[in-house]
């Protein structure tokens, strides 16, 4: 709309990145806080007043925490609308320049879900190995033999370490009797 090299008095081209950036995803966070706050308050109303000797009914903390969460939700939504952008966490292996890799995230969550639902049926020795191998694959490792070997070694190793060393029985699942 305006050329950079126009008359010196002309306004500089507005930087779109500084003005109209609204981190819309942050509204989802605000909505989550609102839902959480509303549930905490609602849950507080469901609690009985308690005994007469109770000077601090169990609902008090629920009202305070839930109420503040609602306020924070509003504040976050307002801040977002005003162009507040979150400072995402940095790290040694983190590359923030290329955005979130949703596919990797989704696949990892799927791998973790497999473990949640199958651990008691198949047993840790199997689901643990699937977990490690699957996660390594999602993250880009393609050394199948090495990945599977490591996964099995870890899951069987920890199974015995927890059973013998710590006295915590992990589920044996279908390998019950074999392990």
């Amino acid at each position, binding site marked *: 709309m305006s050329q950079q090299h126009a008359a010196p008095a002309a306004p500089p081209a507005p930087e779109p990145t500084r003005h109209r950036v609204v981190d819309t995803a942050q509204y989802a966070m605000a909505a989550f806080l609102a839902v959480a706050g509303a549930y905490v308050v609602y849950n507080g109303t469901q609690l009985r007043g308690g005994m007469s000797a109770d000077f601090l009914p169990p609902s008090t903390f629920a009202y305070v925490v839930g109420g503040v969460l609602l306020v*924070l939700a509003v504040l976050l939504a307002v801040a977002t609308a005003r162009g507040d952008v979150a400072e995402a966490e940095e790290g*040694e292996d983190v590359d923030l320049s290329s955005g979130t890799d949703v596919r990797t995230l989704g696949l990892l969550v799927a791998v973790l879900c497999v473990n949640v639902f199958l651990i008691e049926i198949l047993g840790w020795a199997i689901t*643990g190995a699937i977990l*490690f191998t699957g996660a390594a694959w999602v993250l880009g490792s393609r050394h199948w033999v090495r990945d599977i070997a490591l996964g099995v070694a870890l899951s069987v190793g920890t199974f015995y370490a927890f059973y013998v060393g*710590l*006295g915590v029985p992990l589920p044996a699942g279908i390998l019950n009797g074999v392990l």
Partner: protein
Amino acid sequence: MDLLLDGFATALTPSNLLFAVVGVLLGTAVGVLPGIGPAMTVALLLPVTYSVPADSALIMFAGIYYGGMYGGSTTSILLNTPGESSSVITALEGNKMAKNGRAAQALATAAIGSFVAGTIGTVLLIVLAPTVGPLVVQLGAPSYFAIMLLALFAVTVVLGASKLRGFIALFLGLAIGLVGMTSGQPRMTFGFAELSDGIEIVVVAVAIFALGEALWVAAHLRRKPLEIIPVGQPWMSKADWGRSWKPWLRGTAFGFPFGALPAGGAEVPTFLSYVTERRLSKHPEEFGKGAIEGVAGPEAANNASAAGTLLPMLALGLPTTATAAVILVAFESYGLQPGPQFMAQNEALVWALLASLFVANTLLLVLNLPLAPVWAKLLQIPRPYLYAGILFFATLGAYAAGTSSFDLGLLLVLGVLGFAMRRFGVPVLPLIIGVILGPRLEEQLSEALEISRGDYGTLVGEPVAIAAYVVMAALLVGLVVARVRSSRSTTPTSVTEKDEVNA
């Protein structure tokens, strides 16, 4: 003195010494490894508390804490990517030194400075802990309530860039802390019987620290390998010693008190130490180009603050850093409740722990100087295995906490929350401290009101309580003043912007 000697006798038994070595090595390794910090490591190791005796486990965790503090500096120096917030400052000068071919000296001053600071810090801890103990026993519930409020408030307000996000984290944590049975009725249990005992803090810690972090990194994995500066045996010349010893001592003086404060942490003292050294240095021109003082001071400060952190944790049961918070969880899984009575009732354990801090510190120096090249190699571990391993052990730790797949589901849900927090810049420390202190806050308030028969005036009836509220008010005023000042300095620019748009 006898107690301390007994403590050494416990800490130096072969098996405990082994736990200390394992802790120190593991701590340094995870401090060096990207993506894992000492808090996550202790969280992942919580299952050992099921069968290892309390003193051994705590000795190992103390080693991890000190080792992690030290290991973080290695990555800062060699990679310029600090793994822990406490070593951000170290990277400023440390990485410049490494680039100038002085990596060995930077690592040496960090290691020896950590040893000096850790040792002095531990001495201070040993002197102060027994004196603070009897004092805090006299505190009533209103004082406790106020001190805990102060700790929550301070951790939220002092650290981190966005106060709003700090409070979001804190109240999410408090909300998680509400879950469970109260006065015989379920609160916030969503109808799940599994939640009636509350959410296992182990699961929360592992989910937020380990799973959330691993998912976050995985979704933003750097495809290009980082540039690592090769390193030989750490050593220092006479001139380096001469320039390092004063910053070590000054760094210690900054670190310990800040660590001991309810708002503790290592960020502020490392920064103060850096600024001081830059002002006092005889070579100010070297700052920004690799001044050894700028590594020596902050590294001493962060280790001294680690020692300082243990004071409020042992004496009051107040964690002020993420690692201290998770170590507190470990205490609780032994049925131990750090706080006023704790030091008197568990004298042997406390002294063994304090003695083990000396041991850990010495081990750190003896092991880490020769091992530095090995640690640098750790940075080359294939990332798929590293993060797959974190997910594996996170799952294992959470399952072992309750041996139910319900906890694994919970782990996943909270892990996704941990991911979202990193995405939206919400700090994790206030959340975890909120989860730990929330229920105790309610307990103390309930007790205070019980004694006063429901009169809320009792809350300001003790001098310590009043002092805590005054400090909180002062923090709040400071916050508002800073906000007004910063908005004043930005207003003119926004006015001119408007003018330009109107023109």
